[in-house]
């Protein structure tokens, strides 16, 4: 039985001159690469351009890829480097194209629209908190939570140590946890307590 070719197999075929194999690599990983970049730069057009650059750079450097290692951390490393470089350029120009991430607010199907709004507000707070982390800490959170990579893989992408990843993740979690704890308190408190403690609740009522 013939299964799907592995990434390494596709790389081998590409290096042998089969461009269709590289197209398969692109299709296989485009959304993942785009996701990492988008969560860092928060702008769709910018993220698409950078994702395109990442695959082109990947193709140009394919011979350097160690086929004994997994492909995903390698392509994420290229993508992350490009995105971080772009963020540094934008920071120098004092311009960060923050695109408000759209959430589906108060879905018609939801039984309790107020709860849905609360959740969306909360999600926005989480994403704002992510935005305010240092870019490398953001990247660690993205790779751990959204890509479910292990610490060694993240360390490889960031070109740092296992311990450094652990420290960065711990720091980021503390900040995120503050918001999360507040949300849990709001949920468990009475309506009066909600009004007192929750900016989320206040914004909904207004």
């Amino acid at each position, binding site marked *: 039985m013939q299964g799907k070719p592995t990434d390494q197999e596709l790389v081998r075929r590409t290096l042998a*001159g*089969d*461009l*269709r194999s*590289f*197209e398969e690599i*692109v*299709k296989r990983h*485009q*959304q993942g690469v*785009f*996701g990492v970049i*988008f*969560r860092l730069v928060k702008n*769709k057009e910018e993220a*698409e351009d950078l*994702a*395109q650059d990442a*695959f*082109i750079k990947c*193709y*140009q450097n394919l011979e350097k890829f160690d086929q004994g290692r997994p492909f995903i951390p390698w392509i994420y490393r290229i993508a992350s480097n490009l995105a971080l470089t772009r963020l540094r350029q934008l920071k120098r120009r004092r311009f960060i194209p923050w695109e408000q*991430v*759209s*959430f589906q607010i108060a879905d018609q199907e939801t039984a309790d629209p107020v709860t849905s709004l609360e959740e969306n507000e*909360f*999600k*926005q707070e*989480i*994403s704002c908190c*992510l935005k305010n982390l240092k870019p490398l800490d953001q990247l660690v*959170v993205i790779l*751990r*939570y*959204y890509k479910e990579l*292990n*610490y060694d893989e993240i360390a490889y992408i960031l070109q740092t140590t296992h311990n450094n990843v*652990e420290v960065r*993740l*711990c720091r980021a*979690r503390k900040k*995120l*946890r503050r918001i*999360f704890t507040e949300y*849990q308190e709001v949920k468990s408190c009475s309506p009066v307590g909600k009004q007192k403690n929750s900016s989320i609740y206040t914004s909904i009522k207004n």
Partner: protein
Amino acid sequence: MLTCRETEELLDLYLDQELDPRKRENCEQHLRQCSHCRMLLQLRKQETEVIKNSFPVPELTPDFSRKVMAEISLNNKPQSRGILSRILSGRRSWMVPVIAASLLIFVISGLSSSDILTTSERDGAQEGASEIRGTQEPYIDFGRTEQQKQLTPLADTKALSNDESSISSGEDGIPDFTPGYLPAGFVQEGVSVPGSQRGDEADHTKQPIVFSYHNPQTGGYINLEISKADSAAEPSTGREQGITRSAEKEGQHYLLTITGNIPLEELKKVADSLR
């Protein structure tokens, strides 16, 4: 046995599966006995789920991969990325004006001191240029425009635009052998005279002409080599490197060799469609 505080500190690593086996076992032992820490673990799991769902990513545009592949096919062939392209796109872009200025000086000084282009000839530079090529270089017209003829002597492979998909017969007597069939996605890439050099004294009409077709999406290529034969050659149907056909037009015998990196059946179809 771990305390609650110690266990709490290990919970993130426990969920991330980053604990060594001994610590993991200790942690699990505590969790089995402590409902408070189990609740905390549950809370951390919830937290993870919420974070995962809190930052949606839009879908990529549907033709993303096509755009990447087009870019790679057109501009990023590793072989074609030469020194000039690296200078133009890389950190040494400051060299661009320097190179441009040097070229300008070179061209101006070349034109002013040239014996070929005298002042009177500069008025009719096009005719003059044609004369020079006519005497010094093998030059074959394959349906290119007058401007292209002046700019591209046929010593190396030259890319043609996609709309020039058919090739008309040339002045050197090579008739039209345009294939009636090309696999999907293939476009004519160029035409070349293998081994020809500037000032080559050899009879260029005897040299084979190679027409190249290329599929930018797949990297596939087909080469059609046409050479004059002294007499009717034996056609073969399956040489290792391709397919050979013999043809006769206007009393002249030709040997047509079709090679490429596509399946043999496809090559045969191309060979059979040669007009």
